[in-house]
C-alpha cells in the first residue's frame, strides 16, 4: 500500500479506534489510545504515534495484538506495527501535572516580558498576527485573497506569493497570518518557517565563516512553507542571493510554498539578480497600498476593539482623515489619543485631536537637511541632481522636482521662496503649485503616496 495522505490515515485510524473502543474498558481506552495517531503506513508497517513513552511502553506490550488484528481486518497487507513517541505537548498530560510547581507569583499587568519570547522559536511566528485581526479594504483585498489561497492550497495555487507595499502597511501581519493559519489548520504536519531577510543573511554569513554551509541548507530546506520578509535587503549581497536562489529552487521544485515580501515590486529592486527576479515574477505578485479612508476607519475601530476602548465617531473620523501614511502611524495616534482621554479627562473635541495629530506626526529628525531630501529624491528617481535642480521641463525631471518640493515643505516646513531657491532658483509660486499638486494627488494616487513614503524612509535613514 502506498504512502497515504494524512487525512486518509486519520480516517482509517478513527474507524479502527471505534472498533477497539468496543473491545477495551472505557478507562483504559481513554488513557492509552485516545491521543494516538496513525502517522504512516507503508511496506506492511503501520506507524502509530503516542503522546509519551509510558503510553508507548503500555500500548506496545498490552494492545499490540488487538490493534494489529483490527488493522488487518481493514487491510491485511499490514504485517507489523511500529510505535513512536510524538510531540509530547504538555497539554497531553493530566492537568494535575502542575499541582506542586511552587508558589505562583502574581504578575501585574504592567510587568514587562522579554520581547524576544513572544515568538514561537520553531517557526519564528508571533502568534498575535492572525487573519481575524487583519482589516481588509480596497487597498489590500487582492493580497488578502491570495494569502488565503495559499493557506487553502499550499505550494500549488500561488507559488511563490510575492507581496509588496510600503512600510507599516501590514505586509508582515499578512505573511505571519499565513504562517499561523497554516500551523493551526494542519497542526504539526506542515513545517512553517518565517524569517526576515536580515536573519537569513546573517545565517548565511555565519555558515560561511564556520565553513558549515550545510547548516543553512538544513535549516531552510527542511520546511514545507518558507516565509521571507523584506527580501529587498538581500539584493546586492551575492553569496546570500546565491544561497537564497538555491534554497528557493530546492523548495520550489518539490512544491513547497514560498511567500516573499518586499517594499517594492520585483522589477523595481535594484541590483537583484535577473534569475531571482524572474523566479519571483513567475508566481503571484500582489501589492498592498496605503489604506483608503474607509479602511483606515475600520482599522481604528478594530484597534479600539482589541484594546477594549471606545472613542467617539467624530474623533475616529478626524484620525482616519488626517493620518494616512500607514497603519503603524494610525496605531500610534490612537494610543496617544486614548492616553489623552484617560489622563486629562478633558473633552476630546475634533480640534483637540487635530492638535494631537499635528504634534505627533511632526517627528522629522532635526538633522535632516534640504540636501538630504534633494539627494534622496534624485537617487530614488535615478536622475542626476543637476537635472532635478535644473530648468529642463521634461516630464521625467518635472515630477521628481515636484516631489522634492513637496518633501521640503512637508518635512522641513520651509518657506516657499526658500524652497524655490533650493531647487534651482525657481519662483515661489512654482513651489506653491508643486506642493499643492502633489498634496492633492496623494489622496487619490496610492502609487505616488507609496513612493513618497519610501523616499521619506530613505531620507530618515540617511540622516541617522
Amino acid at each position, binding site marked *: 500500500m502506498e504512502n497515504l495522505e494524512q487525512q486518509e490515515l486519520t480516517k482509517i485510524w478513527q474507524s479502527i479506534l471505534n472498533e477497539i473502543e468496543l473491545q477495551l474498558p472505557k478507562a483504559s481506552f481513554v488513557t492509552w489510545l485516545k491521543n494516538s495517531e496513525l502517522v504512516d503506513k507503508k511496506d506492511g508497517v503501520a506507524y502509530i504515534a503516542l503522546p509519551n513513552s509510558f503510553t508507548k511502553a503500555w500500548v506496545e*506490550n498490552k494492545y499490540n495484538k488487538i490493534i494489529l488484528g483490527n488493522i488487518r481486518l481493514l487491510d491485511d497487507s499490514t504485517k507489523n506495527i511500529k510505535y513512536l513517541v510524538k510531540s509530547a505537548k504538555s497539554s497531553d498530560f493530566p492537568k494535575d501535572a502542575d*499541582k506542586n510547581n511552587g508558589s505562583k507569583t502574581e504578575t501585574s499587568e504592567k510587568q514587562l516580558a522579554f520581547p524576544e519570547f513572544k515568538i514561537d522559536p520553531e517557526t519564528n511566528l508571533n502568534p498575535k498576527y492572525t487573519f481575524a485581526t487583519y482589516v481588509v479594504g480596497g487597498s489590500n483585498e487582492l493580497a488578502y485573497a491570495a494569502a488565503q489561497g495559499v493557506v487553502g492550497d499550499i505550494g500549488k495555487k500561488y507559488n511563490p506569493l510575492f507581496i509588496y507595499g510600503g512600510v507599516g502597511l501590514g505586509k508582515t501581519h499578512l505573511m505571519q497570518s499565513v504562517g499561523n493559519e497554516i500551523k493551526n489548520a494542519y497542526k504539526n504536519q506542515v513545517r512553517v518557517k518565517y524569517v526576515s531577510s536580515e536573519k537569513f543573511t546573517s545565517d548565511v554569513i555565519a555558515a560561511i565563516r564556520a565553513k558549515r554551509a550545510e547548516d543553512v541548507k538544513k535549516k531552510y530546506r527542511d520546511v514545507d512553507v518558507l516565509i521571507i520578509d523584506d527580501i529587498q535587503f538581500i539584493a546586492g549581497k551575492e553569496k546570500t542571493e546565491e544561497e537564497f536562489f538555491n534554497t528557493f529552487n530546492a523548495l520550489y521544485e518539490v512544491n513547497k510554498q514560498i511567500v516573499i515580501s518586499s517594499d517594492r515590486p520585483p522589477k523595481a529592486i535594484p541590483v537583484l539578480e535577473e534569475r531571482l527576479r524572474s523566479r519571483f515574477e513567475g508566481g503571484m505578485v500582489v501589492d498592498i497600498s496605503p489604506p483608503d479612508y474607509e479602511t483606515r476607519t475600520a482599522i481604528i475601530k478594530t484597534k479600539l476593539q482589541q484594546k477594549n476602548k471606545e472613542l467617539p465617531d467624530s474623533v475616529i473620523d478626524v484620525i482616519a482623515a488626517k493620518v494616512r501614511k500607514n497603519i503603524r502611524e494610525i496605531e500610534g495616534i490612537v494610543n496617544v489619543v486614548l492616553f489623552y482621554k484617560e489622563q486629562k479627562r478633558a473633552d476630546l473635541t475634533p480640534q483637540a485631536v487635530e492638535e494631537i495629530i499635528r504634534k505627533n506626526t511632526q517627528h522629522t529628525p532635526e538633522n535632516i537637511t534640504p540636501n538630504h531630501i534633494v539627494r534622496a529624491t534624485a537617487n530614488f528617481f535615478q536622475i542626476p541632481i543637476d537635472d532635478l535642480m535644473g530648468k529642463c521641463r521634461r516630464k521625467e525631471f518635472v515630477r521628481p522636482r515636484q516631489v522634492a518640493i513637496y518633501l521640503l515643505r512637508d518635512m522641513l516646513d520651509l518657506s516657499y521662496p526658500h524652497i524655490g531657491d533650493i531647487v534651482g532658483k525657481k519662483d515661489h509660486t512654482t513651489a506653491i503649485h508643486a506642493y499643492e499638486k502633489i498634496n492633492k494627488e496623494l489622496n487619490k494616487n496610492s502609487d505616488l503616496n507609496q513612493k513618497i513614503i519610501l523616499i521619506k524612509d530613505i531620507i530618515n535613514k540617511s540622516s541617522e
Partner: protein
Amino acid sequence: MSVIILRNNLKEALEKANRALGEASHLPVLKNFLIKAENNNLIITSTNLELGITVYVPAKIIEPGYFMIPASVFSSLISNITSERLDIQIKDSNLEIKADNYEAEIPILNSEDFPIIPDIENKNKFIEFNSSFISEAFNQIISTVQFSEIRPEISGILFDFQLNELTLVGTDSFRLAEKKISNSKFKTNFDTNFKFIIPIKTIHEFIRVFKKDEIVKFYFDENQILFKSNTVEIISRLIEGNFPDYKAIIPKNFETEIEINKNDFMNSLKLSGVLNPSIYEIKIIIKSGKKNIEVLSTEKSFGKAKSTLLAKIKGKDAEILFNWRYFFDGLKNFKDEAVFIGLNDGSRPALIKSEDITYLYILMPIKQ
C-alpha cells in the same frame, strides 16, 4: 512472597515513591504502588505517566514475588507502626504485615494493570554528578521557571551540554537565570554536544528525592531522561520543542551600574515591598554622584516607605519600577555578598551578577 525489612527504611522509601503518585481520576491505578521483592531488595514503583520513581530498599528476601497495593493505606500504615522490624508476606490475596505487637491484612490488587515503566535503551553513555552539587545548581534556576500550558518549551530547565561546559537556563519570560558548570564538576563519556529541556516538576522531584552526596548518573534518549543512583531511579519525559534563543536578551552594556551588598538590598526590598502586598511593585531610584540608592514603595493607599542604602554608582540617573519578588528571588541565589546590577531604561532588562561568573540573573522591569 515473604520479606523481612526495617520499618524506617521502608517508610523513607515510601515517602519518596509518594512523589510520583497520580491524581488523575480517570486512571485510579496510578494511586497504587507496585512492589517487588527480588535480589535482596524491596523495589517500590509509582508513576503518574509523566514521571516514574523507583526506590530500592534493602531487605531480607525469604521468597521473591510482587504485588500492587493502594498507596495511601500502605503508607499511613507503615508510618504509624512503631516497631523496628516488619515481616511482610502475601497470603492468598492479602498482604500480611506483622510487627512486634501489631498485625494487619490488606487486600492486594492485580498488578497486571500497573503501567509499564519505560526504560532508556542505551545506557552506555551517561553524565555523572554529585547529587548535592547538581541539586544546588538546579535550585539556583528553579525559581524562574513556572509551569505553563501555553508555553511548554519554557516549562522546564534547558540542559545545554557542551564538552567543556554544561549550561542550565530557566525563564518565565519575565526573568531568566543561567548557570554554567565546568566539566571538572562532572564525569561523562559523551563525546558530542546536545541539549534538551527537563520539565520543572521533574527537577523539583529530583531535588526532593535524592539524598545528600549520592552519585547520580543521567541517561537519556530522544524523549526521556533517567536519573539513577544506587537507591533511587527517576524516569521522566523531556519537553519537546526549542528553548527560546535567550542569549540575545542578556544585556552587555548598561547606562547605570551599581554595586551593592546583597543582604542589605534584599532587606530593603522586603521592607518596601511589605507595603504593597498585592502587586509587588517597588521603585528603585539611582542618582549619579550619590553614595546611596533609594528603594520606594509605590502604592500610596497602603502607606509609604523608603529605604536608603549604600551603593557604588556609575553612569546615568535611573528611576525604574520592578517586581520586588523577582529581584529578591534572583538575589538569594547569589553566594557572594557583593553583587553588581546593570540597568538600562525602564523598558529593558536588568542584569545581576557577582564575582562568581558562573551564574547570572536577568529581570524585566514593570512598565512606568
